[in-house]
């Protein structure tokens, strides 16, 4: 399937993936993240249930210190 990840087109295996699955597939190991799917905020407890499918817009924010 094809999704948009952080404003870039991304080709992924299969037709659906949970948020956890996407993080695994992309080898994202950061702990502090904010994830939005099609503009909707996905809380951490929902990472295993929220599903990403063809055409979805996924924004991943990796939080780092400084300010």
């Amino acid at each position, binding site marked *: 399937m094809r999704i948009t990840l952080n404003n870039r087109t991304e080709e992924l295996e299969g037709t659906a993936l949970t948020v956890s699955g996407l993080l695994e597939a992309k080898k994202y190991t950061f702990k502090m993240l904010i994830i939005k799917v099609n503009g909707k905020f996905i809380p951490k407890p929902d990472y295993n249930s929220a599903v990403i499918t063809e055409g979805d817009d996924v924004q991943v924010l990796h939080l780092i210190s*400084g300010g």
Partner: protein
Amino acid sequence: MTFDQIKKRLSTTTVGIAGCGGLGSNCAVALARVGIGKLIIVDFDRVTVSNLNRQYFFLDQVGQTKTIALKENIRRIDPTIAVEALEVKLTPETIPTIFAFCDIVVEAFDLADQKEMLIETILTHFPEKPLVVGLGMAGWGKSDLIHLRKSDNLYICGDEVSEISEELPPLAPRVGMVANMQANVVLEILLGSEIAK
């Protein structure tokens, strides 16, 4: 739009600033200079000498609470700006009350876990409220890496990669760039993107 028209438009708006360090103090001053009606500034910390390499405070303010010192600095620039200075620690419990009536919230924390907590809380309680985050501004140079990323009402300012460390401290120029970029995004949300016309 003339500056008088801009000031008139901004005079009825309220912006919440979460944290009064490098991002928050500089962003608040920029917004005060252009005539934001009201600023709600929140921080629990005091000014230290090590803050002066980037934060909008002065040597004779070391030891003062940051909210009181910042309110005084804004008063010296423009006494007509309403400033609500809150010396509290922002938590998932206090954030929804403190920022309920703000048109926009500016995330200006230092630590990653605090940034995460604030963003999660705002996105959960106020998904429609514009939130302007500062992310990645340590070190110097690499001005071209600093960018704006937008996802609906969430705006990310910074390079998203430069994390502070012993070898990569936060310094006035780059922190100021991101803080002023946050203020610039606030104006764009409140006034529309006139410059693009």
